[in-house]
């Protein structure tokens, strides 16, 4: 996928003016946190499990070479093949070679973010092979030629009217005057369309939520069952997985699974959690004759041993997106590459460079919500701050930004001047916003007030209050 992250500001401006997008964002925004909170409330051990999950991932990353080799040996013993690919080019070539060798005409696909990273669909199309996305959300995006805007709910930015419109435009063999009374009719039509595709496909491509070193298995987690049909019906199953998906044992996977669905969609467990280990065994009536895992580095090994290593713990649950005020203001497409939201703001500069994606770690209010809901406790705001520092060191921010930071730095180093300035500002803003308790426009802050109001300060600075409280007694 070609990155447009350098245009984050323009993308965001467009997104703010896009009434349909804003409608979808407003509609969906409350659902994610509510569902997660309800699921977490039902599991008293949730917080302890987060610590354990972090430790499992840290242990695995510290010994990643060992666990990958153990896993690969088991894959080969079960009749599968591992293709080690350092770059997206290597991975695309590996996938294409398999498809061409078996004479594939159509390929069904389960939802996979790494396949977006590789832009595998375009590559297959260029070589005369038709990829068919089978996850409902990815399917409509393929019809609309749009990238996903969310890592687990790829098409939530679309409203029902958009679905109807795309289905009418694409399924031209169906009666044009058919009625879509509710969402179920849309679902039924997609199901029928895709059933035929599942049965016709020569190759099925899925991602992997986990790879299990102990058994050589790949694991996918879905609600629709599309990933399972994708990996069960065709003769050839190709798994796309990045290095950091490996975990040592089934017990390690159990702990991560307890966190994954709750953090993602607020389910205790997704509908289908499926472990695939090699090719069809003698006597089996189902299953692929070929099982390939295309294992992809694409920048991950560079993150090991760096301050960004904790990002490799990520299990792609999307809790950080779902709780992010910035993400829900500008939507996922604004981020301009595969991974949006806080996890994208950390991962994207690591994978495509801070010169390409420097805006992303700046698009955060550092409210800290992302870190507080992350099931593997990735210190996302901290890592974004690391990127900001690197960006500044490389003189990438604009002159205005640097000048502004210079002014702030001057005051920050002079506490008396800083307190005077903030006292004046707090007093002034409090008077300005006295009537409504908020400010809807401010000189030099149009960028802020264009999208939302600024709550008016109460008239006092933090320092003043703190000093007063100290005088009143021990805190």
């Amino acid at each position, binding site marked *: 996928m070609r990155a447009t992250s350098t245009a984050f500001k323009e993308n965001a401006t467009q997104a703010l003016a896009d009434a349909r997008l804003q409608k979808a964002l407003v509609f969906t925004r409350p659902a*994610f946190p509510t569902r997660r909170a309800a699921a977490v409330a039902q599991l008293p051990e949730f917080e302890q499990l987060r610590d354990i999950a972090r430790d499992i991932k840290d242990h695995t990353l510290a010994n990643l*070479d060992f666990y990958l080799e153990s896993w*690969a040996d088991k894959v080969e013993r079960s009749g599968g093949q591992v*293709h080690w690919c350092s770059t997206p080019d290597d991975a695309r070539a590996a996938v294409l070679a398999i498809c061409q060798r078996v004479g594939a005409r159509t390929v069904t696909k389960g939802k996979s973010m790494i396949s977006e990273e590789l832009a595998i669909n375009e590559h297959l199309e260029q070589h005369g092979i038709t990829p068919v996305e089978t996850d409902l959300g990815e399917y409509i995006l393929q019809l609309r030629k749009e990238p996903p805007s969310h890592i687990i709910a790829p098409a939530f930015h679309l409203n029902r009217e958009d679905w109807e419109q795309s289905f009418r435009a694409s399924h031209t063999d169906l009666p044009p005057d058919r009625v879509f009374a509710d969402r179920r009719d849309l679902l039924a039509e997609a199901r029928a369309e895709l059933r035929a595709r599942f*049965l016709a496909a020569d190759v099925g491509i899925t991602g992997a939520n986990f790879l299990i070193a102990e058994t050589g298995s790949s694991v996918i987690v879905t609600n*629709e069952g599309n990933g399972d049909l994708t990996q069960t019906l065709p003769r050839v199953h190709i798994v796309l997985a990045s290095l950091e998906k490996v975990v040592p044992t089934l017990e390690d996977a159990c702990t991560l699974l307890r966190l994954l669905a709750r953090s993602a969609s607020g389910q205790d467990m997704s509908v289908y959690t499926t472990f695939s280990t090699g090719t069809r065994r003698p006597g089996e009536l189902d*299953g692929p004759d070929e099982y390939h895992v295309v294992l992809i580095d694409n920048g991950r090994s560079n993150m090991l*041993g760096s301050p960004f290593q904790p990002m490799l713990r990520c299990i792609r649950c999307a809790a950080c997106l779902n709780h992010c005020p910035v993400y829900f203001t500008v939507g996922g497409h604004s981020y301009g590459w595969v991974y949006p939201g806080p996890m994208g703001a950390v991962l994207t500069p690591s994978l495509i460079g801070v010169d390409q994606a420097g805006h992303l770690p700046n698009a955060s209010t550092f409210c800290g919500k992302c870190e507080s809901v992350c099931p593997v406790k990735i210190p996302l705001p901290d890592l974004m701050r690391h990127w900001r520092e690197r960006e500044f060191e490389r003189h990438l921010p604009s002159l205005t930004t640097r000048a502004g930071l210079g002014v702030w730095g001057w005051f920050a180093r002079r506490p008396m001047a800083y307190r005077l300035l903030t006292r004046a500002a707090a007093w002034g803003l409090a008077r300005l916003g006295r009537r409504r308790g908020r400010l809807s426009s401010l000189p030099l802050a149009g960028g802020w007030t264009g999208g939302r109001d600024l709550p008016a300060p109460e008239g006092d600075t933090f320092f003043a209050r703190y000093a007063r409280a100290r005088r009143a007694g021990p805190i």
Partner: protein
Amino acid sequence: MSREAILGAIRRSLGRGAVPRDLAIGLQARLHAHPRHLIPARSRLPRPQQVALFLRNVEKEFGTVARVPAAAAVPAAIAGYLAAQNLPSSFVMAPHPELRAIPWPASPLLRIREGRAAPTDLVSVQHGYAAVAETGTLMLPGTPDRPTTLNLLADTAIVVLRASRIRGALEDAWDLLRAEWRDDRTGGFMPRNVMLVTGPSRSADIEFTLELGAHGPRRLHVVLIDDDPPAVE
């Protein structure tokens, strides 16, 4: 070679060479021992409550349940379910010895085909290997007598499960498989495919609103055989 290139890159970043021998022995031992982590208390219950928790969770995830006293009662339970749902009384069934041993002729109207599911099959009957009370999850290993397509292709998936196979936590169900299954190819316990199924297929991709029956079954019906006296209150 790419394998060496990637492993080399990992080792360089981690600031070391290959994992030293003594550490590798420790890591191998961890794989071998596969230690459990914290297991939520919710499924640590006396047997009857554990089975009840399983059933409650199946229903919470939009599955349905029929509880029968013995295998002999399964045909009537399935015939009754199909009639109530207005479904045809024919289905495709897993070629599993336990299912074959059920006295099907007791319900002469049922038409049964054994094998994998075809796209035209409306109803499938699968053999439930084990189940997890913690989440209402069925463990369905894909083996010659338990075809994977039976979990996926039919509109209505019926799973026949013995109550004695219900376990508390997911780890307990894996332990059953570890103890009971041998894969001839690898010598390990892992079959080619293991599906953990929690309720019927669904999607929330349209306006983040849940609808059942996305690509897999619209209905999931568990016929539970009470073969476990301590589980019955």
